[in-house]
């Protein structure tokens, strides 16, 4: 069909495998909670999401031992996501506030801050424990 080129395209496509990456499973399991539980127990597995490239900017990690408390990261953070804790002279990072720019990584003179490749971060409580890095 010259005037509807898509017809040929879709008919060709119907025989091919879909482009979908079936994360976390092809269809919704009968119960998500049950599914997550059996994943936890190792009885089922989550189909992995599309892989991240090296140097992907995921959830931030912090090495409080190497940190010197120079506060440079705070000066360059565009999102006000880093808080200085005067008692310990260390910093605390709020992941839900961070915009994953990794600027603090670049700025940190001691390399205490590194972006991980973790990006499945959805949460019901934005101040949950795993959402605060310190």
């Amino acid at each position, binding site marked *: 069909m010259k005037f509807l080129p898509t017809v040929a395209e879709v008919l060709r496509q119907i025989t091919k495998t879909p482009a979908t990456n079936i994360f976390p499973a092809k269809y919704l399991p009968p119960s998500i909670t049950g599914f997550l539980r059996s994943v936890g127990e190792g009885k089922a597995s989550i189909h992995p999401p599309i892989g991240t490239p090296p140097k992907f900017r995921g959830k931030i990690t912090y090495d409080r031992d190497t940190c010197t408390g120079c506060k440079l990261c705070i000066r360059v953070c565009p999102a006000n996501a880093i808080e200085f804790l005067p008692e310990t002279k260390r910093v605390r990072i709020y992941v839900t506030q961070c915009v994953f720019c990794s600027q603090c990584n670049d700025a940190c003179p001691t390399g205490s801050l590194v*972006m991980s490749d973790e990006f499945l971060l959805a949460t019901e409580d934005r101040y949950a424990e795993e959402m605060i890095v310190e």
Partner: protein
Amino acid sequence: MSEGAGKKATYNLPIGPIHPALKEPILFTFKMDGEVIQEVDFAPGKAHRGVEWMGMRRNPVQIVHLTDRICGICGVSHSLAFARTVEQIAEIEVPERAHYVRTIIQEFERIQSHILWAGVAAHELGFDTLFYLAWRVREESLDVIEYLTGNRVNYGIIQIGGVRRDFTSDQFPRIEASLKYYEDLLGKLLNLFLDDKSIGLRCRQCGVLSRDDALRLCTVGPTARASGLNMDVRQDSPYAAYGDLDVRAVLPDQYLSGTNGDVYDRIVVRLLEVPQSIGIIRQCLDQMPPGEVLWETKYAKILATCKKAVGEAVGRVEAPRGECLHYVRMDGNSNPHTWKVKASTYSNQMAWLKILQGEQIADIPIIIASIDPCMSCTDRVAIVREDGTDVLTKEDLTRLSVEKTRRLMQ
């Protein structure tokens, strides 16, 4: 054929600010006669976040990431334009290789953005298969961008005085593979979009913007080029590495027999800019000089240099949607004294009033989309008090502008 149902002679049809055809909030008010548009008015400002205001309270290194998020589609245009102003004021010498990296990223951004737009246009036409197809192939450019910068959308690659990441030679095959991918795909994309009768039926002679109107309304970018204006910042006042490269504006008559300035021509221009970008990236890969990509890696130093800078400058960039312009004035504080952003949609949006008139309801989405509007980077002004008692007239605005300019001059 008379419309099947009754209408009061004319009626008002509001569209927006939240409407599936508009991915961003903006309120249109149409005065309709049946299905035909008599008059158009629109109220932007719904996405006004006070970006410039916030920026004037932050240092340039932070602002770069704010500019990234003026709009998430052109992840690099705004930050590039902004960085160029600061670099000019602080007289920072950007390493040559950084220019090439910036260029490559900008062209990937263009590929990504134009294919995105093509998909959106198809969606506005109710052609979801093409929408899916376009966005499916767009993922490839996002993958490359993510591979090169670490994020799919807000690249964060620009830094004052260069770029934050260099491309290593082991990354080149990946880039090359994706260029090849798009080259192979291009024929199919052009065929699917441009030979389809149902798209032609909807887009030809629809939303026509004549060359004169395009000129008079100060349109920029593909919108202007689709009306036959030979203009492109990359060609007219090259920045980054464009001066070394062969860049020529894409005009619809390079593909079609003539220029109509209709929606169809805008599709043609955008689709043809994809191979153009591929060509530019190829040139960059070939010519890229070795060397540093950032003039200074110590952030304290960058911050200090920016703080010392005094002066003003303008940075112009050809974003996918047209010229994007930043003006910055630094006065020796860590924060800019003034920052103005003029995005491409700012210039293009007035064309709506012209091209929507006399068209039908059904064409509203595609015509609005045809200039590829981005409200998030356009919404510079908002009337904050909503009672509408203090709408500013043209005279008020001119007076305020003059006053402000005087203030800046002091």
